[in-house]
């Protein structure tokens, strides 16, 4: 009898003290449901089963090792109340179903003024989805997709749909379908994000008056594709190594009133690809070491290029599909710097070349007609091809900059190199060639 009583007492203790690896979904959702409006939930360093719906204003703060794991049937976290904060946790295993009417995400936001901070996301269709959600802040998220090249099976890192005035800052997205996707989203600020190994780092359409600053787009098939939009500002962004076949750093398609200022386009297949765009100002950018610096289709009008450094590109700029109207290569007497391949005199030392710089090319015909031309852009044969066609007058003027910028003074390092080389040559002559010099100039070792 006593033993039976002891067993009955011990049994609950055993059940209570058994270590649990996770709370059931019901527990986390119950926790949320049981928290008052404005409350804060501090999660433990463990895995919680999703999916959860947040329908009141609360803060959910995790620790290192806090994971909310979905059951692959829907959104892992759905935010349906304003002023919610989610911070310091990992979200994983949303639905990957492509056949449902709803597109699922690790975190889907339907409301305004929410903050998502320091969240790691993996195994998802979309990473963070803003659906008609405004004035939200997404910062320090680390979103890792299934890998570059996997397009159909996954969605985008950050998907912004009919959502305005949001701030996306210091996020890192890699290996998703597109890094950031904007659709009918206006007035957003996108600052200091890093997007890599996606299809388009930025896939952007029908969205106006957004501001991009300090973002880095690398190793994508296309750095940023901006389409059918107005009033976009891009400042201090980097488009580097977007280098696939027909890749680009920045694509403007049917975009108008775009300001592209102080950006770097480096080692892309095409630095800037402009098609059917109007009223674009491209100013103070560095367009370096791309296969084609600027590819400008004749359907684009009123492009203004000024104060840019366009150098060491295989082809600095190419105009395709005819001559566009009203494209200008200088503004108020200030054009662009075209590098050492376009030597320019500046006798009055005012920093502006005394003659215009123009560039003729015959490659435009090949590029227009045959996409395989891009495979030859790094070949030394290109220069011979251009020269041959120049001789037979088969080339056309791609651009004419009436006021090219001149950079005064050679680099100190280059001058040092020449001095060292000269010193080395003189040393070699003296060490090896003294005897020969003596024979030539008569002394021949004799004291006379």
């Amino acid at each position, binding site marked *: 009898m006593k033993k039976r009583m002891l067993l009955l007492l011990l049994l609950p203790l055993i059940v209570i003290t058994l270590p649990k690896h996770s709370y059931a979904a019901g527990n986390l959702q119950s926790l949320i449901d049981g928290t008052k409006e404005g409350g804060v939930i501090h999660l433990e360093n463990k895995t919680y089963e999703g999916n959860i719906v947040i329908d009141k204003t609360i803060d959910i703060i995790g620790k290192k090792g806090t994971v909310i794991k979905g059951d692959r049937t829907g959104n892992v976290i759905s935010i349906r109340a304003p002023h919610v904060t989610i911070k310091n946790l990992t979200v994983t295993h949303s639905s990957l179903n492509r056949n449902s009417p709803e597109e699922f995400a690790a975190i889907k936001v339907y409301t305004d003024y929410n903050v998502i901070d320091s969240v790691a996301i993996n195994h998802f269709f979309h990473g963070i989805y803003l659906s008609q959600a405004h004035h939200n802040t997404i910062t320090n998220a680390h979103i890792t997709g299934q890998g*570059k*090249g996997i*397009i159909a099976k996954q969605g985008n890192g950050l998907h912004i749909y009919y959502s305005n005035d949001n701030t996306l800052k210091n996020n890192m997205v890699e290996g998703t379908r597109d890094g950031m996707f904007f659709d009918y989203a206006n007035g957003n600020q996108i600052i200091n994000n890093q997007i890599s*190994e996606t*299809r388009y780092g930025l896939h952007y359409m029908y969205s106006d008056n957004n501001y991009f600053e300090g973002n880095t787009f*690398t*190793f994508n*098939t296309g750095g940023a594709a901006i389409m059918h939009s107005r009033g976009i500002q891009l400042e201090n962004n980097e488009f*580097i*190594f977007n*280098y*696939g*076949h027909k*890749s680009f750093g920045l694509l403007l398609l049917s975009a108008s009133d775009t300001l592209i200022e102080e950006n770097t386009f480096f*080692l892309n297949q095409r630095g800037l690809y402009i098609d059917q765009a109007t009223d674009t100002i491209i100013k103070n950018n560095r367009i370096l070491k791309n296969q084609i610096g600027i590819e400008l289709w004749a359907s684009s009008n009123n492009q203004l290029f000024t104060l840019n450094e366009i150098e060491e590109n295989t082809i600095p700029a190419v105009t395709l599909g005819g001559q566009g109207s009203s494209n200008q290569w200088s503004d108020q007497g200030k054009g662009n710097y075209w590098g050492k391949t376009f030597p320019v005199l500046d006798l009055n030392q005012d920093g502006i070349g005394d003659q215009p710089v123009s560039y003729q090319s015959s490659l435009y*015909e*090949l590029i227009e*007609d*045959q*996409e*395989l*031309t891009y*495979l*030859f852009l*790094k*070949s*030394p*044969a*290109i220069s*011979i*091809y251009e020269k041959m066609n120049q001789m037979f007058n088969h080339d056309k003027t791609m651009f004419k900059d009436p006021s090219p910028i001149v950079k005064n003074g050679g680099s100190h390092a280059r001058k040092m190199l020449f001095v060292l080389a000269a010193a080395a040559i003189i040393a070699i002559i003296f060490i090896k060639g003294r005897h020969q010099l003596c024979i030539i100039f008569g002394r021949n070792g004799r004291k006379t």
Partner: protein
Amino acid sequence: MHYIWKEWKENIKGKGLWLSFGIIVLVSIGLLYKSSNLSFDQGFYVLLINLFDAVIYFIPIICLFLGAFAIFQEKEQKTLIMLLTRRDDYKSFLLQKSIAVHSVLLGPVLLWFFAYLIIIKFFFQPDLKAYLAFLLSLLCLFLIYTQLGLLIGSISRSRMQIVGFTVAVWFYFFFLHDFILLSFLSDVTYENVKGFSAAYFINPLQAARMFLESSLGVYSFDHMSKLLQSFMWMKPGLFLMANAVLLLFTSYILAVIFHRKEGTE
């Protein structure tokens, strides 16, 4: 083994090998210095691409000359006749000579590039897989052009002939081959694109570049058009291997068939 040792002893006394190594070392150090202000993450890939773009200007011609003069020296010193009298088989002589020349050339180059990797670690985040792809591309270029040089040395009877053949081969692969392809580019269709692709990748410079850039993850073959998919009917690595095997084998066979045992001053 004694062929390798003999080759090494002969070459370290000469200037050609040291001049070649000197150029490789100077160019790689120079490019590292020039790239030192690039970002820690991407600078490594930028450096490798720039280094490859630089070395293709002088590695082919150096390898052609070194390979050609390695064989021609045997003719000049009449040691070829002696070796063939002893062995009476140009095939086996050429095979051993080829292995010796490749070893003498590649050994120190590979050693240098392994040391170079250690230096790079102070500047950038290295990616070992990418670096191995870079070394493999260089290795293929060295092998192919050195073997072509051995062919030139085998068929030439004078130094002037060597210079002429070397410049012609270099000019062909560096400029003429792609120029010819560019001239036919507008005639490429879905029916003949595979043939055009084979002609494109016969150029070892293009095959090595494509392999390197795709291995670095820099060049992406995602979302290829139908024409490009037909063009890339094999993976870049296979194109490079096929190119290397074909050119090495062809050079060897042509050298065996058309060799001349003696040279003139």
